[in-house]
């Protein structure tokens, strides 16, 4: 297992002060949620942790080695990222899209085999999009495309999952099944780090939270300690009502 570690990390957001340097370790089995208002830098943080964007200072370590010292191919065998936005300049089928998740595991001269296709089909089945496998991705609905993107990373089978708004476009049932899938991944010793818009989903499914403020401030820790109404109200600049459901807090925006 390869814990992902942020060491004195300051993400590079133009025209923003350094703020709080991030120091945390994403341990196997943990599910982290990142909360913050629009523009707080959640996506930038995720891309920085994946090594796709250079930090302003500090480092990201994977298994005690800095990401900058590891080959992209080796990083991608351990670290998977579900993007919020995706491009499709060229038409591709759902199965072809899931199959690219095998890319890090194949040598340049290798063709995809029946095994690779089986792994991709299983992933599509788990995300409930296997019936669409011959459809072109650009003809799918937003929620279906989101599930195909998650199935692609499931095919990639990384130890560390980074996800940018994984519940975007999903209906309630599929939101829950995706979060259950991620919980099962964490249960199998992998780790999950995701940006979420929905405070209540984060409160329910994440064991650790990182609150990212627009001015660069940040705080992180076990979810129970972070779910303080005052801190959340400051985070979103929105007054909240807190109710208890099922033994867990539920936050509702106050009408003004």
């Amino acid at each position: 297992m390869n814990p992902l570690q942020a060491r004195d990390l300051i993400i590079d957001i133009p025209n923003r002060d350094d703020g709080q340097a991030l120091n945390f370790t994403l341990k196997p089995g943990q599910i982290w949620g990142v909360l913050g208002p629009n523009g707080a830098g959640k996506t930038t943080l995720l891309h920085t942790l994946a090594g796709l964007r250079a930090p302003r200072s500090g480092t990201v370590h994977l298994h005690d080695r800095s990401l900058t010292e590891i080959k992209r191919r080796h990083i991608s065998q351990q670290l998977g990222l579900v993007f919020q936005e995706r491009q499709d300049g060229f038409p591709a089928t759902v199965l072809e899209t899931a199959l690219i998740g095998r890319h890090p595991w194949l040598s340049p001269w290798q063709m995809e085999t029946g095994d690779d296709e089986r792994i991709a089909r299983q992933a599509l089945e788990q995300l409930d999009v296997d019936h669409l496998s011959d459809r072109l991705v650009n003809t799918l609905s937003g929620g279906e495309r989101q599930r195909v993107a998650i199935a692609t990373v499931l095919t990639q089978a990384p130890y560390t999952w980074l996800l940018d708004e994984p519940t975007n476009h999903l209906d309630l049932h599929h939101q829950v099944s995706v979060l259950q899938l991620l919980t099962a991944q964490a249960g199998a010793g992998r780790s999950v780090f995701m940006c979420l818009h929905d405070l209540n989903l984060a409160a329910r499914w994440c064991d650790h939270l990182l609150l990212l403020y627009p001015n660069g401030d940040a705080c992180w820790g076990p979810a129970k300690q972070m779910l303080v109404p005052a801190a959340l109200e400051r985070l979103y600049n929105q007054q909240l009502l807190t109710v208890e459901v099922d033994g867990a807090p539920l936050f509702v925006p106050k009408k003004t």
Partner: protein
Amino acid sequence: MSRSLVTPLFVLALVSIAAMVVSVGTGSVSVPPGDVIAVILGDGSTLQQTLVLELRLPRTLSAFATGGLLAVAGALMQVLLRNPLADPYVLGLSGGAAVGALLAMLAGLGGLIVSGSAFAGALLATLMVFGLAHGTGSWTPSRLLLTGVVVASGWGAVITLMLAISPVQRLPGMLYWLMGDVSYARSPSPGLALLFLVCILVVPLGRSLNVLARGPMQAAALGVSVRPLEWTIYILASLLTATAVTMAGSIGFVGLVVPHMLRLLLGNDQRLILPACALAGGALLVLADTLARIVIAPEQLPVGVITALLGVPTFLYLLYRSR
């Protein structure tokens, strides 16, 4: 290699051979397909041997190599930019190569220096277009196309200027170059060798290209070293274009039309599309050249005219269809 790759390539190879046999057999003295094959196998009359092996085959092979190179260059550009409308001609690469070649001709140089200069021109054009259209981290298709078109018209102006100030005795050679014509192309082997090499090279690069077609960030997240791969594609596409343009002048639209048609038929796996482009682009240009020879026989049209006449309506149709 899986069967789904082999069958289409085998069919295209047969089509290419058939096109070449027809091309070699067509002309002022026609040679039946059976005789063409006999001559190539070492039989046939002396007249037929001279006609086929010395006069027509080099031209046909040059047309094949040129078409293949341009189609592969176009397909590579399209993956690089994730834009099905990119092609070396539209992006001004051919213009840059032409200016390079004409400069060398204007200076009275010939042969290898013209080729080298055309290559340098194509590379310069690539750098200019990509450098200027480069935004923060990625290219927006509309900006890139606009940059390419503007740069291409800039090259056009430079070409006109050079023609205007050139001494008269150099003009015919320069004009031949610009019109795109394989009738004087006599040494197809470098182009064919390059085409073959690239087709071998894209096998290991193919899957990375497939991933790159999903966008640079997604590709990086899946373990592709995006920058080196992108530079490899730039340089390859420039080299292919420069070689093609050096052999046969600027021939438009093969690089645009052929990959697009093949993607409609065969999907978008670059390991299939790129070799298929080499074969289909070659076959198309061989047929276009055959047409160019017979439409107003005994006079000949430059093959660039035929490909443009086919390509312009197709390009307009694609633009009309795209949002």
